[in-house]
């Protein structure tokens, strides 16, 4: 069964780490669905969050291969612990006057925010888990979406172990 897994990787914050990880995925034929990377609160380390697909054996092998990289300090498959996930999406919509109230309603209904307004465009910001982002996507689809930008996933486990 192919499933998406969110893999959280703690790495040394040094040049070339991201290429090592990305090379590993491409070299071994694994797929990257989304990827985010930023330093942790301690700038010596960075956190890489990758969403990837595969059956249980493939995910196990991906985690082991990641662990084999020298600058990789810790690898966790967040699907096997209780974890919270967030994505962010920004949508620029060209709005006619008669649509403006609809857009406001959509923003309210999906818990999104209008973060920029011009006479012709609105920019909506959605923050939430994958389902919430997807809900917004479906609701704005009938309108004139000029630009749609979506982040990769960031995720955090609820246990205090990681």
């Amino acid at each position: 069964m192919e499933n998406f897994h969110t893999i959280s990787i703690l790495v040394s914050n040094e040049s070339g780490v991201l290429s090592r990880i990305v090379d590993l995925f491409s070299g071994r034929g694994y797929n990257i669905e989304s990827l985010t990377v930023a330093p942790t609160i301690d700038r010596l380390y960075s956190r890489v969050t990758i969403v990837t697909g595969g059956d249980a054996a493939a995910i196990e092998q991906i985690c082991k291969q990641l662990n084999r990289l020298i600058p990789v300090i810790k690898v966790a498959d967040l699907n096997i612990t209780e974890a919270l996930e967030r994505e962010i999406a920004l949508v620029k919509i060209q709005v006619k006057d008669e649509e403006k109230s609809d857009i406001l309603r959509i923003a309210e209904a999906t818990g999104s925010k209008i973060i920029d307004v011009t006479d012709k465009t609105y920019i909506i910001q959605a923050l939430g888990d994958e389902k919430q982002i997807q809900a917004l996507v479906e609701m704005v689809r009938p309108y004139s979406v000029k630009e749609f930008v979506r982040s990769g996933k960031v995720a955090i486990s609820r246990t205090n172990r990681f």
Partner: protein
Amino acid sequence: MTGQMFSGAEILLKSLAEEGVKEIFGYPGGVILTVYEALYNQKEVKHYLVRHEQAAIHAAEGYARVTGKPGVALVTSGPGACNTVTGIANAYYDGYPIVVFTGQVGLNQIGNDAFQEADVVGITRSCCKHNYLVKDVKDLQRVIKEAFHIATTGKPGPVVVDLPKDILSQKTVFDYPKTVKLAGYNPNYKGHPIQIAKALQTLSEAHRPIIISGGGVLTSGAHQELLKIAEMLKAPVAHTLMGTGTFPSNSPLDLGMLGMHGSFWANHAVSHADVIFALGTRFNDRITGCLSRFARDARVIHVDIDPCSISKNVKSDIPIVGDIKNVLVNMIEQFEKTKPNIYEADKEKWLGEIAAWREKRAERKINSDKLSAQVVIQKLYEMTKEYNPIVCTEVGQHQMWTAQLFKFNQPRKFVTSGGLGTMGFGFPAAMGACAAKPDSLVLNIAGDGSIQMNIQELATCMDYGFKVINCVIDNGYLGMVRQWQEKLFNKHYSETKISHPDFVKLAEAYGMLGILVQKEEEIEPAIRKAIEAKSPVLIDFVTEPTEMVYPWVLAGEPLTKVLLSNECSV
């Protein structure tokens, strides 16, 4: 910090001395000149000048294979560094420790497409265990310390250190670190005792156990423990190509090599086993044959220091991550303490079944008035065994025949490219073996195709008196490919007939002894002459082109489908 200041180049050499490196293989060039200047001014490190950078890496690997110590190579930037890639990949696959120092253009030029610039860290990233670009001379000694640590611990492998030109002339104090701090690198050496207990119980109760000994047994130095546990458990032992020499061939429990060109009985034993005790093997496709039909009834106990090897190809029922020697020592202790019932009658019965399979042997006689390669290799074995030689090979038919016909009773005597299958590996690796073990008899058994892949190294052999005996099995073809074409491609010998110069004249041109052997009665005198010679030797054995390697399990077929002669249908 105060103290005497040294240049990066001097620090490199002083660090090598700290690591106990006495010999390096290399080739100079523009940006690495400062290091060669420093080499000129010292006597501690001996540098061997090769004729192609690829050979420097293979020689360093050959050195590492026969000594267990890391091999070291030094090359310049750009083309010099690019030429090392095959060698680095070869060492990575087979898991041998080498440290490769490559020159790089100055830090301020990196990325500007400078003369002889190549992104070496990028190019080698996926074929080495780890690599570094040193950006500050102050980091150099720490990086070298880490490089040797990473190369030699866990599953050993190659580490590349890229040295920008300006770093090599900048100065700092020398204070070689005593320890290594790598938060993300902590190989697990001690196998889990509960897993080991489970494994011991499973093996004791097994009716048809088999041990597969891979290259990891050699790396771990666990061959004595392997013999002990095999005898305790009355379990027969098959080895992989890389595990050659890890189990004494004169033991009644020895099954020889398994896999594509392994013995009929080893392949059948592994296919009918109920428990497989796999030690330090990656379960490469050349070992398993058709993966979905590999040992379907067996429970698999897999010991490896590299967790990635476990359940990568063959799913493991009892995985044990750890150093094989530690694991076996623990298992032997547990055995002695608990004295488990090993159901000896079952095991005797199983050994009896295997004995019946031993009747099935490959046809080794050929109908030809030309020499048989197998007769040559058999003779080489018989005439050199008293010298306990180091036997290197290239890749192809001669390699498989050597693996089949030479008998090894100790590790680190057989040097061959397993995972990557690199033609051109054997000869330079043999030079590395000569540098490491100047008193050993060193053979390189080659094909007429593969010897030509690094034949320029004949000059290096002459320069340093590396007495490699190159035994060229000369059948005028890329024999292994020809063999596949004969069976699988309707005898369309597409681009496999290959010419070569007069090898005897070529050897003589380099100043070494060249011997031509065309008849059976010429084999013995030629080998005797080669052993007695003071110089390197090249023997050209002109052999029958159509001779085939058997047993043969075709790629993708299950291990039980073994072809034993030309008469066996595909």
